[in-house]
């Protein structure tokens, strides 16, 4: 069956289409070339005055895993505020920042997003996280496995093990935990915190292993390049949230010496320590570095003013920030000689100096980093805000007068300390399509999504054009997933599961002897049971989409 979408204005940056009126054809869930004369078009959808982009891709959103469930447990009051009834098609649920699984899928679909990555899956928690993610319908999903604090890897680096063997270990982790890539979180710092070190800068040594975050960063960055992994190293750096951390962030960029690296939630890593209150914006310094270093991609982790909850594997930073918990309760966990997690609820308030400046810093970064192909729209859901805030964030980027009105409402001292109101840039629809679709797909190595070319998945979002961009983006006219209309006029029309992305890599089987003995001796589990088998995923009805490690542009 062939469906034709006609008369819509198309924004498809991958194929360099900028607002051209063009017909699209869908067959078996895929976008096809114009059918031949003898092929029957079964359905024509007239989309006059509508705008089409491919389905949105969220590169960094905490949607599943132990930390999200702990946050749900910690905050019943938040869940009681947002309750969702069941219906014929939809399950019941609750919550916003740590929304229950089914409703994460419904909400993303209603926003026109069709692909989302959970960015911090601990190896030991990967099986649970993937089974949980199978209850998030309507979107394609994947994970990045957290390395950089596990005792096995740190020991390899301490012993100056050759890169080839470390690559085998990294590939083994990706295969065993069924992820798309590797995330660094506060390299060596989470481990150091277990030995009561309270901070660890890029060139400070971890007490136990005597190695620095810099050495971990360099080794893992190289691993992913050597493995030709679909996504380069995904980095949550040292000193998250610490005033003055901009210096560390810049040093981190220099540390990888021109190699590809994705810096995540850079808003939290762009703080200077100037001024009376020793807290100021480092956005222009970081933007200049990123503009200069074409090897760097980033996402922002914008904060928005509301109650939310921060959830991170960075126990060291989360413990440091627990004093700011609102409400006054928090959780930390030391986990399986791998890493940890910390849950700290936060209420970002526009009258608070620090929160206001954080908000402005995020926007400054969006506007000062010139190339939208290298900066992606995130709120580090739910850390900066729930992903449901994206439409308002898009309006802040596209509409300068709205932005300046909002700026005038924040803490006055923060206003004095931000250049935001002087920044004239307004994002275009094409730019938005780059930073929410084409850009993330490119950096994730996903070839069949994020665009509308022939062979792409028919993941399509249709918007009604409106002046108010928040309204336009919060309520797409139609969302198509794998060729099926799943949302129309804000209503879910059909519910099914998306696919699960896994990078296909290989490793020298000899590494397993050492890992197996480490598991038996120290971890108290069998390595064989740590490794997730495809059959287990199939038993849960999970459909796997393999992505080859064949990147040749590193």
């Amino acid at each position, binding site marked *: 069956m062939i469906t034709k979408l006609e008369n819509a204005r198309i924004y498809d940056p991958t194929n360099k289409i900028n607002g051209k009126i063009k017909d699209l054809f869908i067959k078996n869930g895929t976008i096809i070339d114009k059918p031949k004369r003898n092929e029957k078009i079964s359905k024509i959808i007239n989309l006059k005055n509508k705008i089409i982009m491919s389905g949105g891709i969220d590169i960094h959103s905490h949607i*599943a895993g*132990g930390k*999200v*469930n*702990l946050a*749900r*447990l*910690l*905050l*019943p009051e938040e*869940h009681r505020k947002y*309750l*969702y*009834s*069941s219906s014929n098609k939809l*399950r*019941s*649920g*609750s*919550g916003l920042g*740590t929304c*229950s*699984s*089914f409703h994460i899928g419904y909400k993303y679909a209603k926003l026109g997003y069709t692909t989302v990555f959970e960015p911090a899956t*601990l190896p*030991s*928690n990967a*099986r*649970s996280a993937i*089974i949980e993610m199978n*209850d998030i319908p309507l979107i394609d999903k994947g994970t990045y496995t957290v390395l950089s604090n596990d*005792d096995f890897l740190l020991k390899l680096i301490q012993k100056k093990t050759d890169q080839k063997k470390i690559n085998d270990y990294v590939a083994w982790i990706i295969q065993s935990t069924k992820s798309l890539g590797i995330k660094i979180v506060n390299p060596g710092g989470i481990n150091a*915190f*277990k*030995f*009561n070190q309270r901070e660890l800068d890029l060139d400070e040594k971890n007490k*136990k292993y005597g190695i620095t975050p810099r050495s971990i960063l360099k080794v893992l960055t190289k691993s992913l390049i050597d493995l030709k992994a679909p996504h380069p190293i995904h980095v949550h750096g040292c000193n998250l949230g610490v005033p003055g951390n901009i210096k560390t962030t810049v040093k981190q960029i220099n540390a990888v010496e021109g190699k590809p690296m994705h810096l995540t939630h850079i808003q939290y890593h762009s703080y200077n320590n100037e001024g009376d209150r020793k807290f100021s914006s480092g956005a222009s310094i970081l933007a200049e570095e990123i503009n200069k270093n074409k090897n760097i991609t980033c996402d922002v982790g914008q904060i928005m003013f509301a109650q939310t909850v921060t959830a991170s594997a960075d126990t060291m930073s989360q*413990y440091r920030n627990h004093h700011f918990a609102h409400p006054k*309760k928090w*959780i*930390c*966990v*030391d*986990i*399986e*000689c791998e890493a940890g997690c910390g849950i700290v609820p936060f209420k970002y308030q526009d009258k608070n100096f620090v929160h206001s400046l954080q908000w402005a810093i995020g926007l400054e970064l969006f506007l000062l980093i010139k190339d939208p192909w290298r900066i992606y729209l995130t709120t580090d859901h739910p850390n900066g805000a729930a992903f449901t805030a994206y439409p308002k964030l898009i309006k802040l980027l596209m509409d300068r007068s709205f932005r300046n009105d909002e700026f005038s409402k924040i803490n006055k001292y923060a206003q004095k300390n931000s250049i935001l109101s002087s920044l004239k840039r307004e994002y275009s629809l094409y730019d938005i399509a780059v930073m929410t679709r084409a850009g993330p797909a490119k950096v994730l190595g996903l070839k069949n999504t994020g665009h509308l070319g022939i062979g792409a998945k028919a993941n399509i979002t249709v918007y009604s054009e409106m002046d108010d961009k928040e309204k336009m983006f919060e309520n797409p006219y139609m969302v198509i997933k794998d060729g099926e209309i799943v949302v129309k006029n804000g209503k879910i029309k059909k519910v099914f599961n998306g696919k699960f992305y896994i990078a296909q890599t290989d490793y020298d089987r000899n590494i397993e002897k050492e890992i197996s003995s480490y598991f*038996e*001796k*120290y*971890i*108290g*589990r*069998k390595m*064989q*049971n740590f490794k*997730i*088998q495809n059959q*287990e995923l199939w*038993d*849960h009805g999970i459909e796997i989409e393999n992505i080859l490690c064949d990147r040749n542009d590193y």
Partner: protein
Amino acid sequence: MKNINFTCPFCSLLCDDIQLETKNNNLKPLNTSCPLLLSSLKREIKEQFPRINGQKTNISQAIENLSILIKKSKSTLFAGMGTDIKGTKATLEIADIYKCIVDHFSGDSYVKNIKSVQELGGFFLTLSELKNRSDTIIIIQSSYDTAPRLFEKYIFPKDTINNLKKRKVVFVGSKVPQFLYKNIKKISFEHIKLDSVNLLNFLSRIRNSINSEVLEIKDRRLLNFLKLLKQTNYGSILWSVSELDNNINDLIVTEITLLIQELNKFTRFSGLSLSGSDHILTVNEVMLWQTGFPIRTSFQNGFPVHDVNLFSTKRLIDNKEIDLVIWINSFNEKKIIINKKIKTVLIGIPTHPQKKNVDVFIPVGTPGLDYNSHLIRLDKVVTAPLKKVRNISLPSVDQVLNKVKERQFQ
């Protein structure tokens, strides 16, 4: 006859180092004397008929009856909930459709942990951190009954990443921890004998004395304990709510949480709750991700409503606030409450002694014995894969409930 690697489903340690000899569906562990595993495998399945009012029937008739009962019911409770991830998911789907309530066997004690986390949060650790990191382990009035191999696997072994020498293990409470006395050579052991009220006072005094000058403290026992805490590099505190005095167990858990928070101001400490019998952790985790709330959640309004007191199994049955209770237990023969004025269904193992006393009995297999399964470990982080090891034709909980779901529109 063959020997196979086996992951044990009978407690939430989910030990996967067991060698099992299998012969005609008889299973014999070769390398462990875990009492829970041995007693669980001893059950001899002589017959496996479903029953309606105690009378033998076939499976489709029993499921038909269960479906009719659920459709007719104005208020249904899923109790016990001894099941795995898939079983919990199937239950929640039915609960959503028919607006039921969900609780668990261990609800009464486990809600004390839940409440403490909801009010204060906490600092926790997982089993391999306990094994490799903890130089001091404080056990609050906890025997090893619910997780028999915990100490053997995670506390007594010598091989640790941190090269820990003899660990310091302190048992605080009124019980006599024979399991520790027996292994006294492996650890540096101390026993602080206290009844439950004094236990609470002791913990509270410790917390309040942490910042005092040592000279100000006269109680020798307190002083020594404080010294130990201050010398510790990485300590852990273990407790089991079900073994604490029911009247003050919530206060004790709160005190432990606050003490750990205080200790982390200068050294590293974290806690581990040992409550996890009948896989409440598995059920709780699935409930949290699918609904946003833990056990004791009702779907009667069409959306989830969570209340740790209101939705207690005992209270709902005693007050007859429900007209149908569906007990699920695929692991053991734990006694269920039967109230003749409330329709009672048991989805349980075929040897359950109360199978003839309920309105409908549907026999099911055990996860990891009769079908592949996933269960969540004591520390909530690790999910273990379990594989079928015997060939008895018994359905799983999710298969039974999915059949009920299929009859929704019939």
